[in-house]
């Protein structure tokens, strides 16, 4: 049906407008559909195949990979796979919590500077994020080495044994994960905090609320959309991490990312790797759906 509308000052039929619009969005959408959805589809397909003796793929329709993920491999039942899942969720959750805990004050700090200072600080926050992940991670390796001041300090405080480095360790893992996620949390929180209604905050302070109370009741509700975005952009990438756990965590305890990577490297078991990735995707979607329910508005401006 071709109605006439006034759209951005132009008198036009809806049909030509629709066609024009479709022309613009067609190619990008098709690109995303083909290059993203098709691969995800391929992955879902491969998850049901199995590995042949020489590492090639065998197109059998089998649930063997999923059974293995549930713990039932050729040697009986093992808790290893569930442990991997559990540990991944735990690491992601702790990383997210720590990151958000640090990002809130930082976002506030930036929002309360004069405009020039704000731009400068935002730029400073973005720059490390633009440097490559591998570089940042091994920079931490360097910094946490046993001769560097931080390790020396910990040694003298008796926190670690003498001549030991601060990595690999759970501490190093979290340091790496949190510093990797900071910019993703700070930026969405900042955009929210900048538009904060300070009147409410001041009112809460005038009413003698303690800082925690002010935060919980005056600030947090207003920053929920930014918080939701920050949570998503921190938790989801953390679930797929493998470089940081590998290098800073010491490769002692696998996360999902390590398990997946191994299948595409050493063991050449693509189907199993696909199965693990599929489960990871479903988990991601679940997290995403949960976070979205808390905030109905679209994240696009």
């Amino acid at each position, binding site marked *: 049906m071709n109605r006439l509308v006034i759209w951005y000052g132009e008198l036009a039929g809806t049909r030509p407008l629709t066609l024009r619009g479709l022309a613009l969005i067609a190619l990008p959408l098709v*690109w995303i559909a083909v290059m993203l959805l098709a691969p995800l589809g391929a992955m879902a397909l491969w998850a049901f195949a199995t590995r042949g003796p020489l590492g090639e793929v065998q197109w059998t329709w089998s649930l063997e990979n999923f059974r293995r993920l549930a713990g039932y491999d050729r040697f009986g039942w093992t808790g290893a796979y569930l442990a991997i899942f559990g540990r991944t969720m735990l690491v992601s959750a702790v990383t997210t919590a720590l990151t958000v805990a640090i990002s809130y004050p*930082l976002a506030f700090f930036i929002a309360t500077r004069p405009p020039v200072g704000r731009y400068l600080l935002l730029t400073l926050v973005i720059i490390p994020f633009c440097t490559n992940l591998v570089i940042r991670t*091994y920079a931490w390796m360097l910094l946490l080495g046993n001769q560097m001041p931080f390790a020396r300090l910990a040694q003298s405080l008796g926190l670690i044994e003498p001549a030991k480095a601060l990595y690999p360790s759970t501490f190093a893992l979290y340091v790496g994960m949190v510093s990797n996620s900071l910019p993703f949390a700070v930026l969405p929180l900042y955009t929210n905090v900048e538009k904060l209604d300070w009147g409410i905050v001041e009112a809460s302070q005038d009413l003698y609320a303690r800082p925690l109370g002010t935060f919980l009741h005056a600030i947090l509700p207003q920053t929920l959309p930014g918080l939701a975005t920050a949570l998503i952009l921190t938790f989801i990438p953390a679930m797929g991490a493998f470089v940081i756990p590998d290098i800073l965590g010491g490769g002692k305890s696998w996360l999902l990312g390590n398990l997946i990577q191994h299948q595409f490297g050493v063991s050449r078991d693509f189907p199993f790797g696909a199965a693990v990735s599929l489960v990871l995707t479903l988990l991601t979607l679940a997290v995403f759906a949960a976070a979205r329910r808390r905030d109905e508005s679209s994240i696009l401006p």
Partner: protein
Amino acid sequence: MNRRLHPAVPAVSLTAMGLLYLPLLAVAAVSLNASRYSVRWAGFSLRWYARLAANDLVLEAARNTLVLALASTLIATLLGTALALGLRRFPWPRWFSGLLDSFVYIPVVTPDIVFAVGLLLAFETARAAFPGLRLGLGTMIVAHVTFQISFVALVVASRLATIGRTVEEAARDLYAGSWYTLRHVTLPLLAPGIVAAALLAFTLSIDDFVISFFTSGPTSVTLPIYIYGSLRRGITPEVHALSTVIFLVTVLLVVLLQLVLRSPKEE
């Protein structure tokens, strides 16, 4: 600004900035160390940079990284801008634009590794149909564009929202045709946003490791892949120098980005 901030706020902020910068500064410091062993300071020296400049492998990796980033940014900026314009400047019914929003958001929320795995498997499957298909720079460019489009669209859409309807409507009142409006009104106003989006896409491509790692071919080693390999094999100080160079280039780019964002045309 007279906000009463809890004293913990600046303290934590400083720690956070420290978390972000200390490692990079450590790398830069070590790259200038004449000694091969990081922690014994043996004097200031640029020899690792000299060795870097003579290292053919690294130069080739750098060239691959650059080609990849430039090509993918170019394509993604075009497609992403078109997508943003199509999304926001046309009267879609609410359900459709909601659907499109979600669709655009998928690349942003998919974990890198899942996307990389999917791409690898898709290429493997495609190779059954087209045996000539090879993993290489071309496949990496395609992969990068896919996730860049969404980010570009997000940034440009945000800019479109800032511009608002008034200017375009004014142009129409003056009898400007839609193509003319696009070329001479919308796009120039949009320019800072497009440039910002392009710079963002560029840095995303340079930053990417996981996707390149899974979809690279023998002739398309990029800098992050080279560095990761060195990590496994044993770090030489040239890698420190390399990282510092990359860091400095990034700083330059981001400063450019901010300058463009704050260009006087916008005020």
